[in-house]
């Protein structure tokens, strides 16, 4: 009986969060499901340090470009130093939050949605505000309506830069008639393929172009305007006239036209199916049970994409509470969870170095599709050795290594397999014991 409760508590803490903090497991075990659901009513904590908003960082980028500072090696170096400092602070802040928050579910949701709406520093332009994107567009909306999240993400300068929307010009707009530059489909395509309907969502190339036309004019305020770096709609580059998207005609309506299109995309049944599949894949299994996906998609449709109710439906799904643990932790997850379990968050450079060597450097996803959410992408022969090496390196760096037997108890309670417990007890030092515990499949999975 105790063992069963421990297992449920471990699932609550790790599958819906990261790992139990010291002493947390007993609290969770009293009502694992309730502990998860109550977090949906909580307000997400703000990052514990002052981090720059996106607008001034965008403005700084525009200034640097205007002054051609990127061509001067010294100025470029100094700029890069500032950007690295901001980047490090962002990574440390989100790791610390994951490690300390009372609402780890909200933090996991933030990471899930941040990955769903990927912006990647692979485009150097957005290095200064990729972290701000997560704080400004994602974090406030993880339990709001999907459409609010969608609009916030698509109108954020990081997304507009990352998917080239800032340079997309309606061919028949006033500006388009005068210049050779024109339409860029990137944001329109990814919005349909990745953010809403999904690749099998039943749209055509004509729909991609229609949405791209609808979105023309979405850009940011220039340096000579009131709030440089903020979202701005420019009628002069907006493609005029009616557009037909997914069989529906959108009459010329400037900014409102695009927002109406996003509202319709958010309400589309294919979007419900796509989001439900991704959520179930993240929280239940790489190949989630179809009935779970169906149930979540139904709630998504019936509630108009109320993400609080959608997430609750996921938590209420029996399939989400099964053992053995079906999901493999991604490197980001592994690192954050180790920090939470032991209470030690390494300094930012070590965090970033770790994530880099584990092939998941935060805010550097390889493509707009984001990081993979299936085990086969993360558990290769080489990757597994890197993960093991990391566990040792992390344990070696703990300022005051805890008794690994006690740590195992606080992380797994009665649910720790005897063999893992035995291996930890036999370890030759505290650090090796902690490393074993972190490297054991029991912790590598959630």
């Amino acid at each position, binding site marked *: 009986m105790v063992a069963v409760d421990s297992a449920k508590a471990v699932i609550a803490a790790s599958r819906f969060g990261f790992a139990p903090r010291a002493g947390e497991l007993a609290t969770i075990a009293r009502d694992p499901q309730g502990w998860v659901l109550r977090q949906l009513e909580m307000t997400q904590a703000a990052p514990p340090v002052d981090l720059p908003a996106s607008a001034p960082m965008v403005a700084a980028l525009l200034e640097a470009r205007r002054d051609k500072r990127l061509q001067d090696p010294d100025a470029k170096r100094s700029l890069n130093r500032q950007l690295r400092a901001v980047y490090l602070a962002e990574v440390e802040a989100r790791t*610390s939050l994951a490690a300390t928050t009372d609402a780890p579910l909200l933090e996991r949701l933030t990471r899930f949605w941040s990955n769903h709406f990927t912006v990647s520093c692979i485009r150097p332009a957005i290095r200064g505000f990729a972290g701000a994107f997560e704080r400004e567009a994602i974090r406030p909306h993880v339990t709001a309506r999907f459409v609010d999240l969608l609009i916030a993400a698509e109108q954020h300068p990081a997304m507009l830069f990352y998917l080239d929307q800032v340079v997309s010009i309606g061919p028949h707009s006033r500006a388009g008639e005068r210049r050779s530059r024109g339409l860029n489909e990137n944001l329109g395509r990814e919005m349909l393929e990745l953010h809403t309907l999904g690749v099998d969502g039943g749209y055509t190339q004509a729909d991609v172009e229609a949405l791209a036309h609808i979105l023309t004019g979405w850009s940011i305020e220039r340096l000579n305007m009131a709030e440089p770096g903020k979202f701005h709609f420019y009628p002069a580059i907006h493609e005029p006239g009616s557009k037909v998207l997914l069989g529906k005609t959108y009459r010329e309506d400037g900014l409102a036209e695009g927002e109406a299109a996003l509202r319709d995309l958010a309400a589309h049944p294919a979007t419900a199916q796509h989001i439900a599949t991704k959520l179930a894949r993240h929280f239940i299994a790489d190949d989630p049970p179809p009935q779970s996906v169906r149930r979540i998609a139904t709630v998504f449709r019936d509630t108009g994409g109320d993400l609080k109710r959608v997430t609750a439906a996921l938590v209420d799904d029996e399939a989400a509470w099964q053992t053995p643990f079906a999901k493999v932790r991604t490197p980001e997850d592994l690192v954050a969870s180790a920090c939470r379990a032991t209470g030690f968050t390494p300094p930012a*450079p*070590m965090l970033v170095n770790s994530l880099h*060597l584990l092939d998941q450097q935060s805010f550097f996803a390889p493509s707009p599709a984001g990081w993979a959410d299936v085990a086969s992408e993360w558990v290769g*022969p080489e990757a597994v*050795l890197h993960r093991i090496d990391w566990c040792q390196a992390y344990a070696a760096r703990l300022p005051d290594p805890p008794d690994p037997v006690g740590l195992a108890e606080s992380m797994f309670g009665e649910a720790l397999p005897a063999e893992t417990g035995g*291996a930890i007890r*036999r370890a030759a030092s505290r650090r*090796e014991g902690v*490393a074993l515990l972190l490297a054991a499949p029991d912790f590598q999975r959630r």
Partner: protein
Amino acid sequence: MTSRREFLALSAGLFAVAGLPGAVFAAAPGEERFVLVLLRGALDGLAAVPPLGDPRYAEKRGALALDPAGCVALDHGFALNPGLKILEPYYRRGELLIVPASGNGYRTRSHFDAQDLMECGLATKTRETDGWLNRALALVQKGDRRLGLAVGGAVPLVLRGAVPVASWEPANFHPANGDFLAALGPLYAKDPLFGPALQLGLKTQSMSSAVLGDASGAAARGFGPKSFQPLAEAAGKLLGAADGPRIAALDMYGWDTHVAQGTGAGRLYENLAGLASGLDAMAQALGPAWRNTAVIAVTEFGRTVAVNGTNGTDHGTASVMLVMGGAVKGGRLYGDWPGLDRLQDDRDLRVATDSRAVIKGVLKDHLGVDAASLARKVFPDAPGLAPAEGIIRASL
């Protein structure tokens, strides 16, 4: 939370020595260097410095008895394991003192507890406990001088406490060692995904190192044998600098040889060779400062005299302690030999010399900490234990 300015400082480079700005020293630091090497996992002292002349040696050690032909003969029937051969010149020059049958006075056979006690130097450890080397630092140098250095990442308990210390670590992960992978193996074997991936990963790795001509191969993955030398060399360089730190502590792992520990070759031999080459590299890196250096290599406890059922040894009591350096009055063995005929609990070598007495001797005669402070502050739970005399060469 770290301030933005600190972020800038941190991002300057992963190789940087944290907490060691050039201007810390109010005055030039003293010339004496002290390095503590913690051999974690319990070194088999009878294998490192075999008492070949003990009449019961071959009988009691059984399959683990070393062939005298491969060992380096020392005095009084003792010898150096072939893995430590590189240290022979240090012994001949009088720079290596060997303390057989030494232990720290604690009778626990738990690695975790014993390492804690070895480092805090007290009878019990609490969350707030500091380390004896940090308490000694407070007596060696008063004021804001960061003379202490932790090499290899985290500050070990022995150096933790009120006196700030610097730390240095290499940028990349050490690959995990063979022991660690062996302990993980059974846990991974049951996992349908992690098990095969680990197996294939190790196979690929040893294959590629064979192709690349790296003799170390998969066996070289180590917090073990090969990873100590770079740390020891770094410690030597940092301590050798004119205005560098003066007192360092570093760890070496891989001593918990329960299985197939080997004799004149094998796991323990490799680890001893790694230790010896590290100590040698440290001595070289220290340059002229080696003359003023004392290094202590100590472990938490020894291992059983008899071989166990898996050709290894289990947790025991007394082990061996190495004291090395130009400042050391070496070239000899120190302390008594309790013999192998009367064993502790009928299984372990008994402790003849308390390692804390040797440490006290070094702190007193090398670093100038007075005996009263040693008794009151550094090892307050063992006030009656007199500092060992004559460990350090009398200065000219």
